[in-house]
C-alpha cells in the first residue's frame, strides 16, 4: 500500500517561473491492484508517478510505502527502495541504444552484485516469457515499438519489484500492441504485483484490467 498525504510539488521554487505541478494530493494506492492516473497534459500525472516511484521528492507532504515514511529519506536510500520495490516502463521506453535486448534487461540489476549467471538466466527467462527470446541478442534500436516495450517491461521486472510503474505505456503503440500490453498487465496483476500507470488512452482506462482510475487536473485529484 502506498499512501500520499498533502503532496505538493513545485518546480523552480522561489524563481519568477515557479510552477506548482501538484497541489495537495491525498491518495491511497492499494497493493496488488492496477491503478491508472488519467488527465490532460500538464495535470500532474507524471509528476505524481515520479513521487510515488521515488524518482523525486515532494516539496511538501508525506509518502508512506507500506508502513515506512519514505519522503524524507536521502537519495541513497531512495535509490535502494526504487531499485528493489519499483520497476519502470517509460513512455519512450528509454532503452540504451547500441546494447542488446538482453543487456538492457540486465542493467537495473548490475548495482546489486547478483551473480552474472543467475542474472543472465533470470533476464533470459523474462524475455522468453514476453516472447522475445529469439531477439535477445538484437540491438534494441533494431526492434519494433512493441518489442522495445516488451524489453522495457522485462527490464522493469528483472529485480522482481512489487510495484510496476508505467508512464503512458500505450502512447507509442497501435491498437493491437496496446491490447497485447493490457494482456501483459493482467498477467502481472495475477502474479500479485501492484501496477500504477498514467494514461489518457480509453483503451487503457476503460479496460477491465484497470481496477481504479484516478482523474487529475491542474495538480489536483478530481475523482477516484
Amino acid at each position, binding site marked *: 500500500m502506498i499512501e500520499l498525504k498533502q503532496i505538493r510539488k513545485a518546480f523552480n521554487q522561489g524563481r519568477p517561473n515557479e510552477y506548482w505541478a501538484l497541489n495537495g494530493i491525498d491518495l491511497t494506492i492499494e497493493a496488488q491492484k492496477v491503478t491508472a492516473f488519467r488527465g490532460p497534459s500538464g495535470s500532474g500525472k507524471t509528476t505524481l*508517478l515520479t513521487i510515488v516511484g521515488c*524518482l523525486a521528492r515532494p516539496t511538501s507532504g508525506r509518502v508512506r510505502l507500506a508502513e515506512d515514511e519514505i519522503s524524507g529519506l536521502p537519495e541513497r536510500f531512495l535509490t535502494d527502495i526504487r531499485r528493489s520495490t519499483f520497476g519502470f516502463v517509460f513512455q519512450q521506453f528509454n532503452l540504451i541504444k*547500441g546494447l542488446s535486448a538482453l543487456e538492457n534487461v540486465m542493467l*537495473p540489476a548490475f548495482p546489486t552484485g547478483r551473480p552474472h549467471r543467475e542474472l543472465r538466466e533470470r533476464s533470459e527467462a523474462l524475455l522468453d516469457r514476453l516472447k522475445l527470446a529469439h531477439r535477445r541478442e538484437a540491438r534494441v534500436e533494431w526492434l519494433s515499438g512493441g518489442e522495445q516495450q516488451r524489453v522495457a517491461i522485462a527490464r522493469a521486472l528483472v529485480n522482481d519489484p512489487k510495484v510496476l510503474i508505467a508512464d503512458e505505456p500505450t502512447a507509442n503503440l497501435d491498437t493491437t500492441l496496446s491490447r497485447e500490453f493490457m494482456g501483459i498487465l493482467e498477467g502481472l496483476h495475477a502474479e500479485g504485483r501492484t501496477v500504477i500507470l498514467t494514461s489518457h488512452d480509453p483503451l487503457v482506462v476503460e479496460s477491465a484490467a484497470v481496477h481504479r482510475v484516478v482523474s487529475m487536473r491542474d495538480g489536483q485529484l478530481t475523482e477516484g
Partner: protein
Amino acid sequence: MNAWIEKQRHLIDFTLASLARRKAKNLGLLLVYALLVFVLASVALYTHALRQEAAQVLKQSPEIVLQRMVAGRHDLIPPGYLEKIGRIRGVQSIEGRLWGYYYDPVVKANYTFMAPAAEAVKPGTLVVGPAVARSRGLAPGNTISFRAYSGKLFSFTVVGVLPHASELVSADLVLMGEADFRAFFEYPAGQHTDIALSVANPLEVRTVAAKLASALPDSRPILREEVLRTYASVFDWREGIVLALLSAAIFAFAILAWEKASGLSAEEKREIGILKAIGWETGDVIKMKLWEGGLISLTAFLAGFVAAYLQVFRFGAPLFEPVLKGWAVLYPRFELVPAIDGLQVATLFFFTVFPYMAAVLVPIWRAAITDPDSAMRS
C-alpha cells in the same frame, strides 16, 4: 566481497559494451593516446639509457684531467709539469696523455688518434675503434695508410679492433704507439696533450683540483663529475628539444582527450539519467565512468610504454636516435642496456593517466548528480 566483485564485473561488462558501441571513436582515441605515451616514453627511456651508458663508460675515466691553456685555448703540456704535480698529496697516479684528431678524407670523418701510456701498441701497428673498422672495412692483419698533416704517408698494420661494448666512446678511436704518434703528428718530444690524474679518495678530488690550479696557474683541471654532468645536461637538452618539438602534438592530444572525456554528449547524459532512474546510484555511475577512463588510459599507457621499450631496447630507437644521440659521420653502433627509472615511469604515468582521469571525472560528477526523474521527462 563476492557481491562487490560481481558488481565491479557488471560495471566493467557494461563499460566494455559501452566502449564497443562507439568503436571507431574510442579506438581512435586509444591509438592517439598510446602514440603519445609511446613518443614520450621513447624519449624518456632512450635518454635515460644513454645517460646510464655514459656514466658507466666514464666510470673508468680518470678523476681529473689537466689541460694547459694559452690565451684561453687548449695547448700542449710542456715537459716538467708531470714532475711538479707529483708532489701534490692525494694524487695516486699521473699519466701524460697523447691524443689528437685526424680527418680522413676517404670517409670524410674525424678519427681520434691516441697513444696509450703503456707500450700496449707496438710500433707500426694500430688498434682501431669499431666504427673506424666498419667504415674502412678493416680487420686484424690489414694494412692501412694515412697521409699525415705534414704530407708524409704512414702505413700501419691493424692488430686489433676495440670491443663493441665500449663503442659509445671508442667508435672513432685509433690507438697507436707513442713513437708513431709523435712521428705522425710531428709532436714535440717530452710534450703531452693533457695529463690524467687519478685520486684515490673521492672527497679529495676538489682539493686536489684546487691545489693543481694554484700550482699550475696556466692549467685547467677538468673533473670527471663535471664531464658526467655535462653529458647529462647534453642529453637533457636534447630530450628537452625533442619534447619542445613534440609539445604541439602533446597539446593537440590534451585538447582531444579533454574534449572526448569532458564533453558529455546529450546521448550520454540521457543514458546517465536512465541508469539512475532504473536504480543506479550516483556512485555506480561514477564508478562505471572511472572504469571506462581507467581502461582507456591504462591500456594506452601500457601499449605505448611497451612499444617504446621495444623500439628503444630491441630496435635501437630508429625514430629518435639521430636527435637524441647526436650527429656524427661515424655513428657509434651500440645496444643500450635496458634501464628503467621508476621515478621516470611514475612521472610519465602521472602526466598521461591522471589528467585523463580528471577530465573524465569532473563532468561525470556533474551529470551523475542530476535528478533521476529527468528520464521520465525526456
